[in-house]
């Protein structure tokens, strides 16, 4: 289980799960690829859960084990990996854990934004030193990808489609030549074995800065879907909320299973545009309503009740979170939410009554 001692707000995966990683490395029986800390099989166990000796390895990514296998195999073949999915489908989560398991270092990250420049992908200079001493290794500031190439490890590139296309294109030569040239120093940095890039991209951003065919071709593309069924999603949410509660030291009890099922049900129904039994159509709101949002909603409710309530998450805490999650900024969302309350939730019977009235109260304001 994650440690509770550090004061860091959010610890990287390799520290949080150091115990599991060490156990897996110690118990390694299969061949380990160059630059990796453990065999692909152990990476799979680390991510999808299983046993290592007596230690239970907690599953980090639940459901779709096959996709994880494809992702790991991709990195074995020295190809770059691109994880695509709706917001909140655990793309970054998976990429972080892949890097943590393979290299024990998930922190070599380039965060893609509209302001990301080529320098952040290649290198830049310490200008004071550059002026003082001219181009030299000392005045060179290496990017995460530069360092990953040198050390033969994995660099992560978050939200790659947020970058302008010329910045994306800087990656092409890196990925195909596996070399980074530094003309100022008349030198080239060859990538060491084990170097690869795990990029993530958001399907909602498609068309913003769509990747060029040339760059796309350098990636193996894995599409991460929303959790397949209610059960999977409930277990994902339960697990993450539990971890967050410890990490963030939320002084509240973890919501009971019934509350989690209710929240996940509402999210799935609004996401899919129909009730779980397929009998009713419902309108879909403008937001994504991802699993990640369900998790933060519950954590939020815990924070509310821990600090301002009695430490038990009640319907009122959930309702205020739901209102915020569903109704983003659009007037349309208000209608969607009210319709859902009246047509679906109201008819759900006694066990939903409390949540319904609380939601109704919040929506009425």
């Amino acid at each position: 289980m994650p440690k509770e001692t550090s004061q860091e707000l959010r610890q990287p995966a390799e520290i949080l799960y150091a115990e599991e990683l060490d156990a897996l490395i110690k118990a390694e029986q299969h061949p380990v690829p160059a630059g990796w800390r453990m065999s692909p099989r152990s990476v799979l166990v680390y991510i999808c859960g299983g046993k290592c000796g007596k230690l239970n390895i907690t599953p980090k990514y639940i459901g779709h084990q096959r996709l994880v296998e494809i992702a790991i195999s991709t990195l074995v073949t020295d190809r770059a990996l691109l994880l695509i999915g709706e917001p909140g489908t655990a793309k970054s989560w998976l990429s972080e854990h892949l890097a943590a398991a393979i290299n024990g270092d998930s922190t070599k990250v380039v965060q893609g934004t509209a302001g990301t420049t080529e320098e952040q992908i290649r290198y830049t200079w310490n200008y004071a030193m550059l002026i003082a001493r001219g181009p030299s290794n000392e005045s060179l500031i290496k990017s995460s990808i530069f360092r990953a190439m040198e050390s033969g490890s994995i660099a992560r590139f978050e939200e790659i489609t947020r970058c302008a296309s010329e910045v994306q294109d800087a990656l092409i030569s890196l990925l195909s030549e596996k070399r980074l040239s530094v003309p100022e120093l008349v030198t080239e940095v060859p990538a060491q074995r084990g170097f690869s890039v795990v990029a993530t991209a958001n399907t909602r951003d498609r068309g913003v800065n769509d990747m060029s065919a040339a760059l796309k071709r350098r990636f193996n593309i894995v599409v991460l879907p929303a959790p397949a069924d209610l059960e999977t999603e409930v277990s994902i949410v339960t697990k993450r909320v539990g971890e967050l509660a410890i990490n963030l030291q939320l002084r509240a009890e973890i919501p009971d299973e019934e509350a989690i099922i209710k929240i996940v049900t509402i999210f799935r129904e609004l996401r899919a545009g129909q009730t779980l039994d397929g009998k009713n159509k419902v309108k879909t709101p403008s937001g994504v309503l991802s699993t990640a949002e369900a998790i933060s909603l519950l954590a939020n409710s815990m924070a509310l009740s821990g600090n301002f309530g009695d430490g038990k998450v009640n319907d009122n805490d959930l309702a205020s979170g739901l209102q915020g999650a569903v109704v983003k900024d659009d007037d349309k969302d208000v209608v969607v939410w009210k319709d859902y309350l009246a047509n679906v939730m109201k008819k759900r019977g006694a066990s939903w009554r409390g949540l319904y009235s609380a939601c109704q109260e919040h929506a009425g304001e």
Partner: protein
Amino acid sequence: MSKTPAMSATPHIFGVRHLSPTAAWHLRQFLDRIQPKLVLIEGSENANHLIPHIVSAKSKLPIAILAYTTDPPVRTFVYPLATYSPEYQALVWCEENKVKARFMDLPSSVFLGFMDRNRTAFPKKEEPKSETQKEPPGEKEEEGAEENEAKPRTFSIYERVAQLAGEPDYETYWERHFEQLRGENSYRNATRNFGEELRGMEDFSTRHGAETLVREAYMRRKLQQAYADGFKPEQIVVVTGAFHALALGPELAAMNDEEFARLPQRESKLTLMPYSFFKLSSQSGYGAGNHAPAYFEMVWNAYNDNTTTLLPARFLTSVAQELRSGGTFRSTAEVIDSVRLAGTMADLRNSLPTLRELQDAAVTLLGQGDPVVVRESLLRVEIGTRVGALAKGVSQTSIQDDFYRELSRLKLEPFKSGVKRDLDLDLRENRRVKSAEAAFLDLHRSSFLHRLSALEVPFGKKLNVRQEGTTWAERWALQWTPEAEIAIVEAVLLGETIELAVAYKFKQQLEKCTSITEASTIIRQACECGMSASIELARQTLQRLANDSSDFNALAAATYELGLVIRYGDVRQFEAEPLKPLLEQLFLEGALSLVANANCDLAAARSMVAGINELNKIALDYSALIDEPLWISELQKLARADHLSPILSGYACALLVERNLISNEELAREVSRRLSPGIPADLGAGWFEGLAQRNRYALLTRLSLWEQLDQYVKGLSEEEFRRALVFLRRAFGDFSPQEKRNITENLGEIWGVNAEHASEVLNAELTEKEKKKLDELSDFNFEEL
């Protein structure tokens, strides 16, 4: 049963999974090693005479043995074989090595008997849509792993096995753990163990389980028979489903004659038929291992040219090629990377890539993460569109032979493929060719396809032709499926050739037929099928029925249908002369029943309008043939009558106007008579509704008519007006805007209003007051009428 020492030994038993290329490969090596004198194969024992045809070089697999009952209710089952079937390879090996091969399973008559009994025992659960069950019985397909639709329990066993092994599904589990075995005897031992495990879990108290035991007893009986024929156990190789591998030893008793006699039987016959990869894949029961026939054949071919390591490359290249031919470009580099990915993924499990890994690699690289992109290409490479073929004359039923003769005579052989193709036919004589046969090729094709449709053989589907009303053009969508072949074989119960079967079918239908509409439909069908004998028979039936019928609508419909058939006559090259007296008779009956039937309510009157229209068309088309003066005098009677349905009277009047048989004065008189004050609204306005259904221009040009209508409406009281409104609104409801404008112009003329102004007023928005008035009318209860 006494056992000689030789009989107590066990023969060489090779447990297989049907349609498994690895089983086929190991089996051939096993046979090479053992060099048996006799090979016994699980398959209906009475199919032995088909073996030479199965192994003939002219047979292109996949083919299937089809067993069918010789009398109704029809039951059939198929026993499919592909090149990679171990059973087929065993037969081929025997042929090559001049070794005797025999089938050893229960005769087809017993299997069909079982099916019969199961069907009657559980009519609800197992009865599919039709009496003729086209799926094969489970026994034939699924030995390696028994399927049983009635028991979901068995399904979950397979799923659990796969889950325990950490595999995404059972097929992948099987492929990785059995299909990739290479060592000598490894496959045989593995399936033997697997069969043993399965036997431990099987519930033999079910009907299916009991039948399995019966079959095994029978196979032991066949073994005993082989010993009696002088073969020693060690000279015999038995090829059977892995499930039975442990049940054929001497320690279990064989079936005796008395037991055999007690089995349910249906008289049956066997024949060979071409099969298709698509059918193989869709037939795959749980564990049958044929979900991807084209892929498995690729595996089999790789065994034979010793290139199994190239298999992933071959598979993924084929997918890329399919993608490219569909317009989606994928580079060789991507194929290379997909092969590498498939290899690494399989490495995670210490195996070679299975189909599942290849699919995943194809989606990740060739589909760039999107399964939809590669779905169709994958299906083509996995399943393929191959259709088997047999040498001419090999099919065992005369009707199959007839079918194939016709196919080649009509040059339709290219259409015998699994891919749907369109065929456009021009039924007219082709004057540019020499022989009569060639000149009417399309006509004969059309007759042939219509005959198949009449037999409900799903080979061709007639599509709508764009040009409406053309009698000479037809468009068909043709697609051959094994179901079509099965339907043809089933039709042998009706006749020896397709023509005879169709004739018999028509005869049956005519004997049962009680309505003239039905009989006239059969005449049309028979005409489309080019079956003059059937037309004659149907003609007689129709005549008999027409004598007793006085239902106007049925008579009119039949007359019309017959009129069409006679019109077809020229195009369809058949003698329409004998039908003409019948047309005359039907027309006469119809005309005479007109007035009697016209005394009816509103709903019936509406349907009669269509009938009157049809008869009138016939009267115009065949005026020389039928008694036109009679028709006209009947119409006049109807037009003048006051006691019949007013709509029909009006309609008859309209027909007479159209034929110019009513002068302007007469019409004016009639209108004023019908619309005179005091006549109930439903009679007056109803009549006008009938009148207004035809030749509107003739009405629009007669100003006097509108004057009278105007007078009539003015003369109505408030209450009467409301009633009349219903009819008038209906009468004008389907007038076009142009026609309505013409009416307003007429009325404007009468009222002395400027035409433009009138139409402006009518097209303007409603005022509040008018709206209110109309709303009031909406509240009016029309139901009371």
